[in-house]
């Protein structure tokens, strides 16, 4: 059996990325869309850590930044979602339809 190399990690990361994008585009619940975005961010983290095997620690430091930022973003996002829920009583993106052309 071949040892696990950088390429394997990259393939997994790419798969996570695609799953995240599909999730954002097809799911109708805002909370699940948020989770799909987190999935993409984790794909990025996996990529950076995998590349760190070749290029050194720099990528790992970057991924810590991304984890922190993802937490901040999730906090703000849920806050915004609660403000919206108070007005419309829904988290379904099909019902977020006041603004249309």
């Amino acid at each position, binding site marked *: 059996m071949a040892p696990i190399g950088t390429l394997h990690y990259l393939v997994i990361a790419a798969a996570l990325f695609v799953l995240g994008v599909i999730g954002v585009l097809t799911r109708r619940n805002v909370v699940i869309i948020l989770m799909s975005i987190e999935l993409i961010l984790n794909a990025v983290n996996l990529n950076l850590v995998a590349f760190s095997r070749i290029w050194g620690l720099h990528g790992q430091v970057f991924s810590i930044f991304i984890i922190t930022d993802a937490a901040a973003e999730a906090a703000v996002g849920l806050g915004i979602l609660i403000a919206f829920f108070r007005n419309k009583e829904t988290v379904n*993106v099909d019902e*977020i339809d006041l603004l249309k052309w």
Partner: protein
Amino acid sequence: MCLRFHILITAITAVVILMSYEYMATQQIRAGEYYSLILLGAVGMCLMSSAVELVLIFIALEISSISTYVLAGFRRRAAISSEASVKYFLLGSFATAFFLYGVALMFGATGSTGISVIAQSLRAGNTSTLAFAGIALMFVGLGFKVAAAPFHIWTPDVYEGAPAPVVALMSTGPKAAVFAVLLRVLFEINAPGRLGLIWVTAALSMTLGNLSALVQHNVKRLLAYSSIAHAGYLMMAYAALPANGIPAVMFYTATYAAMNVGAFAIVSHLAGAGERYVTIEDYAGLGRRSPLLAAALSIFLLSLIGIPMTGGFFAKFYVFSAAFQNSLTGLVIIGVLNSAIGAYYYLRLLVVMYMKEGGQEIPIAPTPLALHAALAISIAATLYLGILPGRVIEFASRSVRDLTQ
């Protein structure tokens, strides 16, 4: 280059804060965090325009984005405002994730996140697939932030729902900062294969923006589509040679900020409590009822069309000539045709203001001193850039050397 963008962003922030005083009072929102969020966003934008390291660019991008996500939903009781905020947040963080994936691939291809190291590595002939994919994904993320087609879907919705002074800020400040980042990503890195990418984006943005603006009834929505079109004109400069493109981009961002902030200052004043009066019909007879405001708005609209004597003319002139010198005749023709289409909907607003009588009289509040100051700054900047563009363009040309070594 950093200094110039810092001055621009600080000026935008100052004018937006001046117009916010009255707006917050009219909307009966008493919240100090509004101003601190604006300042926080401004810090992010300044950092973004001076960062030469992709990690810092990402953090700065997030600082400015997160504060504008919150600001977009600041009229908490209004459903459309919080809806705008949710839309902006979801699509914005989606775009940031794309940008990050691009950065990760770029790191994988070159082993660094510093712009200059990446540039060296690419110049040395490193043109792996990873680098191409990285540039493309980063371009998607940044293209979203500047509202360039085909990543513009959020713009009209968010601009319509968000409070008017916030729209004034986010249609100019973060855009200018992200255009500064694009200068680094596209020119300094000398991104491989950028020409095709920009060609398509610029042509699409101009055409979609202008054509959709033709059928709008809401002034904020109309200005949103106009901002998509202007992002398209600006994109053209990135297809030019660095020596012409960089000054053109800097001049255009400054001019666009001056005229757009001014236009939104008037929109936010006329909107009234609860932003009720934002359709084009509400502007009927404005020329008679409030000649000064109408005159100011006319200057901004004429500048947005690109009439000589206003900044908009030279901004377009520099962009078109920069693209023309790189023999992008097709793109220039599309641009000129689009300017002609664009003139129609700005002129329609002018015609309504001066030649149509309003059915029902909408109340116009007296203009407070702060708004006068905001308008005076915007008008002065718009006219200065239109009458004496030489010094600004010369100042901008100096940064060509920094970016291209």
